[in-house]
């Protein structure tokens, strides 16, 4: 019986470590991917005054697709309220393309990058977050 007690303890510790590692891998890779895509879109926007470009539309579609895919997995690990703004801003990007509002588009891109950066900072196990 005592043996099983120790086995339970070891299983729980392994489970907790696994959850922490999976969270770190899934969340940080997803958010970093979104950040990278945002930088790529920003590069495309440089020296442009409009959004009427097939490549930009394609990049936004890819961004939306990959975010939706990652968001489902992330909902198991993080509070959905903390990441839902990213999805909302991505949806807004598509609207701004339709209305060709490049300034609002740029603001939304910045906000997505800001949310990703904030959450990456917030999820790390450092002294600031612990205290």
């Amino acid at each position: 019986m005592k043996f099983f007690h120790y086995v339970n303890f070891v299983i729980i510790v392994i489970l907790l470590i696994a959850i922490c590692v999976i969270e770190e891998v899934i969340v940080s890779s997803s958010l970093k991917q979104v950040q990278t895509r945002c930088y790529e879109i920003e590069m495309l926007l440089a020296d442009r005054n409009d959004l009427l470009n097939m490549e930009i539309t394609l990049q936004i579609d890819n961004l939306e697709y990959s975010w939706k895919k990652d968001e489902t997995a992330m909902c198991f690990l993080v509070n959905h309220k903390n990441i839902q703004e990213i999805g909302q801003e991505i949806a807004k990007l598509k609207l701004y393309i339709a209305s060709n509002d490049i300034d609002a588009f740029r603001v939304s891109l910045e906000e997505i990058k800001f949310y990703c950066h904030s959450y990456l900072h917030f999820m790390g196990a450092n002294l600031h977050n612990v205290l």
Partner: protein
Amino acid sequence: MLTIIIRSVIIYLIVLLVFRLMGKRQLGQMQPFELVLTLIIADLATIPMAEVSVPVLHGVVPLLSLVVLHFILTLICRCSQHFSKIISGKPVIIVNPKGIDYQAMKKLNLSTDDIFEALRGAGYFSISDVQYAIMETNGKVSVMPKSAAAPVTNQDLNNKVADNYLPIVLVSDGKIIKENIALAGVSQKEISDLVKENSNSKNCSIKDVLLLTINKTGQAYLQMKQGEGLSFQSKRLVSK
């Protein structure tokens, strides 16, 4: 709403598992650190249950972390007497042969009413009957009465009495408990015959039995679903 129901079931099962892993102590028997853990667990469990945006893992991970913490604390307490005293405290004598220890009473933040309540709970209504009263680490008071006030035992009277044995439940609510039958070393037919012999009606079967117990000496207790309980010595059934 279905999500909340499913989450509630998951959290309930996990909390149940957590309490099983923590042991079988009741609320009044808990050490201070166990009581703190229980209160935190109760609070943690409600968050993912009610808040759908919070992942179930946000409730499960702290719960499991607390189990690990509890396990470590228990292990250290078992290994180190000193640490155990820091975490759980140590028993304090609140009543000694001279009377109530006022210093101990103040230290434990107790009133005389509290001490009397605890003594009455232990069955002693007068402090003059008490030799020692000890406040245990789980908050219960153990009382050692003065010899004159202690209940008389067979040993005091030099009476020779047979040892008591634990009764084994053979039939409960009309169902034979197979594990216990094997333990007692009796057959189903023997039980069936015993029921017929000792019940009012010859048509009675095991299904009509509410409770049948037997101990090592053959002392049996039979109660039918309709009728009074009957205690008798069985020659047919003697538990091995």
